[in-house]
Structures are given as C-alpha cells and as structure tokens.
C-alpha cells in the first residue's frame, strides 16, 4: 500500500473541486486532488458522441433516479467532472432565490451583493461571454417562436472563449481551473476512488483510496468532498457521516419534444437561447441533437424512430424544465458500488410538466415546426395547436419519459441544522475539518444551469476557509 501526505485533500475535480483546489493552492496550501475518472484530453472526442460517453461519463451515460416516473440523469466522471460534458450555459444565482435561501436555511453572508462579487471573479476566469455574431438556427428558432408569442427569451452567456476559434472553445475545468491549480503546485491524481473518509473523533485524518485497483492511503489535515450531488452524499454515508446527508436531493425534471421543421437545422451546438417567460419555475430551451439524440427523443414518444430519420437533419430536440416541489434521496447501500437514487414527483409537478410541454409545443409551432413528438409513450404527435391540448391528459406517471442533467441539494448548507448537513460555509456539522463544496450545498434547485452558483459558492467557501 502506498501512502500520501497532504495538507488539503480535495475529492472530485468538477466545478466545486477544481475551484477549491485552485484557490487553496494559490494561497500556498499543499493540495492533492483525487478524481475517480481518467484525465482525458479535452480535444479527444466529439461532444455528446459515443466515444465521449465512454470516456467521460459515469456509467457510459445513463443512470436514473427511481420513482414513478423515473428520471434519467447523467454525470461526468473524469478530470473536470460534469463541466466537461455540459452545455456550458452560465446563469448567476437569481437574487430572489439567494435571499430566500439565506432566510430559510439561515446562511450567513449569503446576500446577493456578496455573491455577485464572487460571481464576477469566476466569470473573468471562465471567459463567460455571448456568441459573437448571429446565433445558430437551432437557437434562433427559440427566439423566433418566443417573439411571435410575445414571450421573453434570452441568449444566455456561456463559458466559451472565442479568441482562438470562431465557434468558441468551451472553458471546462480541465482547460482552465485545473491547470491553474497545478501551476500553483496542486497534485491531481486521476483514476483514484475514495473508499471512505477516515475519522478520529470529531476530526477526519484522511482517506482510504484505490488507484488503478491498488490501495492508497492519503493522510490530510483537511478534507473537501466535491463529488457532486450523488457521489458526495454516498461517500459521506459510507464514511459514517449521515445526519441530513442525502435526503434533500433536488433536480430539474425535464420533458422533451423532437421537433421537425421544413428545413435542415444545425446540430453542432446546444442552443444558447432560453425562453424565460415562465422562469424560474419553468424554462424552455434546446438540447444536444446528434442523430442518436433525435432517434432517442422520437422513441420516447413510443414510435419506432427509424422510419422518421430519413431527413433527421430537419429534426431538433427541445425541452421544458421545471422547478419541482418533490424531493429525492441518495442512499448508500453496503456491498453495492453505486448509490440508490430516488425522486418522488408530486401531482403538482406532473401538472407543471404538462404545462411545460404544452408551452414548448406552442413555441415550436410558432417557430415553424411541422411535427412534434412529445416524450410521452403514445402521446399525440402534434401538427397543429389543436393537437397539443391532448397532452394535458397524456402526461401521466405511466407514460412520461423524463430526464435531467442538474442535480443539487443532497447535503444543503446553513445554520438551520435540523435540515442542513453543513454550516454556512460547507463545514460538515459535528466535524471540525471535513467540508463539502459542490452542487450538494445548494439548498434547493436553482431553476437554471447550476454551474455558476456552484463555482460562486465554492470560491466563497474556499476563501472563508483561508480566512479562519
């Protein structure tokens, strides 16, 4: 067995872990980052391709929160975490949500003004910007439909850098913050899985790991767990830390439509426009739409997609995502490698999803779509607004296919310690030197892509740690 000594151990290298590692390493701390997945060249694979799923996704892509209906989800598992596989859309935490969370969970120093200061710094690191020039057609169609209906739509900024390439280069953690951490002296160990955090009384002393199957013990003065909303609570639970851990899971349930247009549509990028008319409780946007995604989206309507794919370039996939009342759980079970994830949608959530599907259908028809396949088995294939009305009754627990890529809130931060797993800065209640610093801390689903909130809070918490 090999042994590593470090001052700070960071578990996970995604938006939260990379930010934590860079801030602490640049402040002169000795930092070791362990990442369960491999270190993959950012240029190695086409985005959303099978090869990328094999290399960068946990479980090669598919997983699911069990429930009625279940919710499919995907996580990154590589250096950079889910920032390597997401669409790179950027949205600051809305002020009203920050204020609500501050009040309800009693989070110290969580006012919008303070958070905007941290967010602005992260945005500079990440080259957050809007697309120079006209948006691709897949995105412009969202704007066109919204304009016709008198709805508000916004081109979201993204973590893309345009100086070196006309279509931009996504500024993932592997391209930006991880190299910063390494330049400041941090050590990154890919393919290293933490079996459990080692505890002595009210302190942690390191972690028991395996690297390429070989055992490695890491001794550390401080441990930050940043594995994301599923892996972080699972690791804490199997390390014996269970109070308010894993039982507040939130996600954005998402329902889709494969929309056929009378003309070809670009399929290289995820649309950057979002319809925000009903935000934050309902957001409409576009998804990855390679041929496989188009086929899958048509199959979600219970239709054999193959005959529909002769002109697949005319079809693109769009979605409606809701903030749900429901909650879920992440539960580690002894002897099982993957945690059990459950999510119990409420009847009100299903009603919101039906409303979202109807609004999405109206928008796409207004944008010029000629045929809409909803992700509801046996759902009406709509060719006019009159057809869409059937969806109100067709969205049910038995037939609806849902997915998400946003999972949060499985630990939650705040001084209200009956419902939170950590204090206001991510320190786990009852332990002096164990911290969480990732999506798990967000007390609720933000209704928007959470990467900006995760990085903003991670920077805030890391700097608070340095100040103590």
């Amino acid at each position, binding site marked *: 067995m090999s042994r590593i000594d470090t001052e700070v151990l960071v578990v996970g290298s995604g938006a939260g872990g990379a930010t934590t590692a860079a801030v602490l390493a640049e402040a002169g701390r000795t930092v070791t980052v362990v990442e369960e997945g491999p270190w993959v060249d950012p240029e190695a694979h086409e985005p959303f*391709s*099978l090869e990328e799923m094999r290399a960068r996704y946990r*479980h090669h892509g*598919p997983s699911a929160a069990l429930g*009625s209906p279940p919710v499919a989800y995907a996580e990154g598992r590589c250096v950079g975490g889910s920032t390597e596989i997401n669409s790179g859309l950027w949205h600051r935490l809305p002020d009203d949500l920050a204020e609500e969370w501050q009040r309800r969970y009693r989070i110290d120093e969580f006012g919008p003004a303070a958070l905007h200061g941290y967010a602005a710094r992260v945005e500079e690191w990440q080259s957050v910007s809007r697309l120079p020039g006209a948006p691709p057609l897949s995105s412009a169609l969202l704007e066109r439909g919204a304009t016709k209906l008198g709805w508000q739509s916004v081109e979201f900024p993204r973590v893309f850098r345009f100086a070196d390439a006309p279509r931009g280069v996504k500024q993932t953690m592997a391209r930006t913050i991880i190299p910063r951490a390494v330049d400041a002296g941090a050590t990154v160990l890919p393919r290293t899985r933490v079996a459990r955090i080692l505890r002595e009384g009210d302190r942690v002393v390191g972690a028991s790991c395996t690297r390429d199957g070989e055992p490695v013990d890491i001794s550390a003065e401080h441990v930050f767990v940043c594995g994301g909303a599923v892996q972080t609570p699972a690791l804490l639970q199997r390390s014996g830390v269970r109070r308010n851990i894993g039982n507040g899971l939130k996600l954005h349930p998402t329902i889709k439509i494969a929309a056929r247009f009378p003309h070809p549509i670009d399929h290289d990028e995820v649309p950057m426009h979002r319809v925000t008319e009903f935000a934050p409780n309902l957001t409409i946007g576009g998804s990855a739409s390679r*041929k496989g995604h188009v086929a899958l989206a048509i*199959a979600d309507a*219970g239709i054999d997609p193959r005959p529909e794919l002769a002109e697949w370039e005319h079809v693109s996939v769009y979605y409606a995502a809701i903030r749900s009342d429901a909650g879920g759980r992440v539960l580690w079970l002894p002897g099982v*490698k*993957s945690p059990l994830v459950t999510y119990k949608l409420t009847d009100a959530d299903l009603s919101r999803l039906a409303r979202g599907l109807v609004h999405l259908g109206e928008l796409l028809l207004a944008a010029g779509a000629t045929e809409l396949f909803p992700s509801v088995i046996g759902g009406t294939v709509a060719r006019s607004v009159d057809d869409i009305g059937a969806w109100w009754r067709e969205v049910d627990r038995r037939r609806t296919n849902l997915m998400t890529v946003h999972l949060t809130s499985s630990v939650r931060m705040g001084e209200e310690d009956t419902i939170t797993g950590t204090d206001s800065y991510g320190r786990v209640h009852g332990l002096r030197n164990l911290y969480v610093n990732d999506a798990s801390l967000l007390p609720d689903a933000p209704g928007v892509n959470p990467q900006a909130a995760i990085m903003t809070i991670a920077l805030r918490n890391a700097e608070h740690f340095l100040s103590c």
Partner: protein
Amino acid sequence: MVGALTVPSDPALRAGVERWVDDTLADMPEHLRFGVLAQSIVLGLWAKVRGTDDDAALLASFETSPLWPVRQYVRLLKGLVIFAEQELAEAAA
C-alpha cells in the same frame, strides 16, 4: 434482448451495438443492471413456456406492461440500442 431490439442486418453494426450495450450494462448502477438482467431471464423463460421465438412481440408486451419497473427497464434497454445503432451507423457513413 439486445439482438431482438437491434434492427439493422449489417453484422458489423449489430456487433458494435451489442458491444456498446454490453459495456454500458456492465458499468451501469447495480439496481438498473439487475433489473435488465432479471427481465432478460424472464423473456427467455416466457419465450420457452409459450413456445415462441417472436422476441419482438414479447418485448412490445413488456413495453406496455402495467408494472412500471417492467416498462422502464425495457425502455432503458431500447434507448441504449437505438442511440448506439444511430450513432454507430452515422460514424460508419
């Protein structure tokens, strides 16, 4: 089950789809993998009992089963097959 769900007759493409699905199943969370495995066994037994080799018809009946786990596992497997089939065919083209 993968064989029954895969439509193209090209042996190389069918092999590619089966390889992808096998690899994905092997890496899938246990609670999903065991569900798919259990369903594969049931499909085999059912086909034997009914004396039919019409796997596609049996799968269709699974897909509309009143039991949600039965429906979901077959949809999951079908999704994997369709995605791999289209992506591999596109890459080959």
